[in-house]
């Protein structure tokens, strides 16, 4: 019954939006999807494993009949699900410091959003709209997004070297091995426990 599993944190947030504003947001998301360059800052922040925004129009909550009452809402709702590495404070501090305008672009359409800077008011808002995870699973709790990216670099280099390893003379191999080490030397961090969240 935790938001945390190993090195990854599951944040859930819901914010109300006036229907005309959620339409604007959907256009913005479409643009972000079409122009990957706009995602660059998000990629460079490198502590999000997966994140998604789900805009649920007020009449589009799943309805299965069978006696279920129909929803009767005035607002559309924006659901946000993030899987990130680090502590809650660290995550929000980083976004506020570096991606404030990007955050504002997405959340300014939500009711009573105070802006992502300064950070203290922003954190209060998030605390109000965040709800808690009941069950959280990750296939690799001991690894962060950074760990994974590094691991893939090591895997690729290792496959390359081991495919050729037997074909070299010992001296050639030593040379190739040095090249391999240089390729992976910045990618060897251990995986394991996460620091305690505070």
């Amino acid at each position, binding site marked *: 019954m935790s938001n945390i599993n190993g*090195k990854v944190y599951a944040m859930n947030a819901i914010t109300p939006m006036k229907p005309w504003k959620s339409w604007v947001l959907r256009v913005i998301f479409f643009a972000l999807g079409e122009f990957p360059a706009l995602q660059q*800052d998000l990629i*460079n922040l*490198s*502590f999000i494993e997966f994140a998604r925004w789900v805009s649920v129009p007020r009449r589009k909550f799943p309805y299965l009949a069978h006696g279920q009452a129909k929803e009767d809402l005035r607002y559309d709702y924006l659901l946000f699900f993030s899987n990130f*590495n*680090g502590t809650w*404070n*660290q995550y929000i*501090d*980083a976004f*506020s*410091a*570096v991606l404030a305008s990007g955050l504002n672009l997405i959340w300014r359409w939500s009711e009573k959003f105070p802006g992502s*800077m*300064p*950070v*203290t008011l922003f954190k209060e808002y998030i605390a109000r709209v965040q709800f808690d995870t009941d069950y959280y699973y990750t296939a690799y709790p001991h690894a*962060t997004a*950074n*760990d994974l990216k*590094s691991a893939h670099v090591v895997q690729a280099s290792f496959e390359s070297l081991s495919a050729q390893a037997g074909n070299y003379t010992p001296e050639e191999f030593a040379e190739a091995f*040095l090249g391999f*080490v*240089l390729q992976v*030397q*910045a*990618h*060897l*961090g*251990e*995986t*394991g*426990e996460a*620091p*305690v969240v*505070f």
Partner: protein
Amino acid sequence: MSKLNETDIQGFVLRGYNLLFARYFFLHFEEPARARRLIEQLLPSITTGQRWDSGKPQSTVNIGFTHRGLSAFELPPATMISFPVEFQQGMRARASILGDTGRNAPEHWEHIWRGDRVHAWLGVNGITPAALDARSAALRNLIDETRGAVVLDSQDAAGQIVDGRPTAKEHFGYTDGFGNPDYLGVERSTQPGQGKLMPDGSWAPLATGELLLGYADEAGELPVAPIPHILASNGTFMAYRKLHQNLATFRNYLEEKSRLYGGGKEKLAAKFIGRWRDGTPLELSPDAENPDIVKDPDRSTNFTYGADAEGTRCPIGAHTRRVHPRDAFGFNGKLIDRRRITRRGLPYGSFAGEDEQVSDSDDRGVVFMALNASLSRQFEFVQQQWIEYGNDAHQGNDKDMLMGNHGGSGKFVVQGDRSANNPPFICAHLPNFVELRGGDYFFLPSITALEMIAMKLVDPR
């Protein structure tokens, strides 16, 4: 920004005194009225941030309080609970957050730090041992006369003197004393590399509120602070940590690994920290020490890591790169600006020459003191995320080579290149070179706040 009233801020916060002999008393207050009288009598002696334009004083005195110490003065409950959570808990309760486990766990700390009796830190610095002793005696007399406190213990610390001249060396042989941030309004001039990085590559002072409560900080707001404003403003928080150094283990480890490392012993030692042992930054001089750089404040801290993303000059996990990443995380250093701390501290214990026999059980180490507006956002964050962990630097769980709580496992990677004297190298099976022997969190109030505490005039609103 508002002009700083230097006479209201404790000098220890604003200045590194460069007085090489120190004694830190740890006090316990038994009774509020007597304790208040002691503070009232101490007040004229508290050294402020006023500049020493007419020469250094013989000695200085400063004071800080733990949360329990403040409650001994009968401050209102609303004020007491408005202090940040980590300060209320104290450093011992934060051990698992800080990675103070295993050999660094509180059960291994010195006696005074294992209980709840430490109420205040009284820091005395002297220009000579005699000046230090004289001041200490005077303070002891005052404490005894007023019966305002009990002295639980004291800790001596002193810089190393070599051939009659002071050095900034610590026990492992590294030259310390670089890297304290510049804050707006605090120094008369800024040194390139000390403040925050601007988009055009120049360095500007950090917002005052990163050090002092009551001033705008780097997030564009006043930092979270206790109430009332007048109690908090011009004050700051300090993390005090007594770090024992296992000198024998360090020397043996360095010796042993140097035999396999193509760059030699001094270079390997430099790779651990990011500076040669004389203080030359590896980024500026990867192959040799360079005293000219060390002596020039325009150069000694003036570098970035952008051109060394691979870590071939300064390893990605080296100490100085971990605690001050500069531009290494991108975004013009904006992820760093709120994670800086001001360090004050001195070594303790006797210095041993390179050829002298030493033992890990010899009493030596460094008294580490970090000053910051927010313990959790600054000191605790750096300790937890950048020293005992490495994810932000893309180093996974790898810890800081010298400071990390390794317990015999873990590793440190020295990135290299194809040259014979700069090969890639891994140091594994890391022992604890440094052990925590105790400490706590202290609040260093302004002079005004001290007066209010002494006169029992604190109202929460």
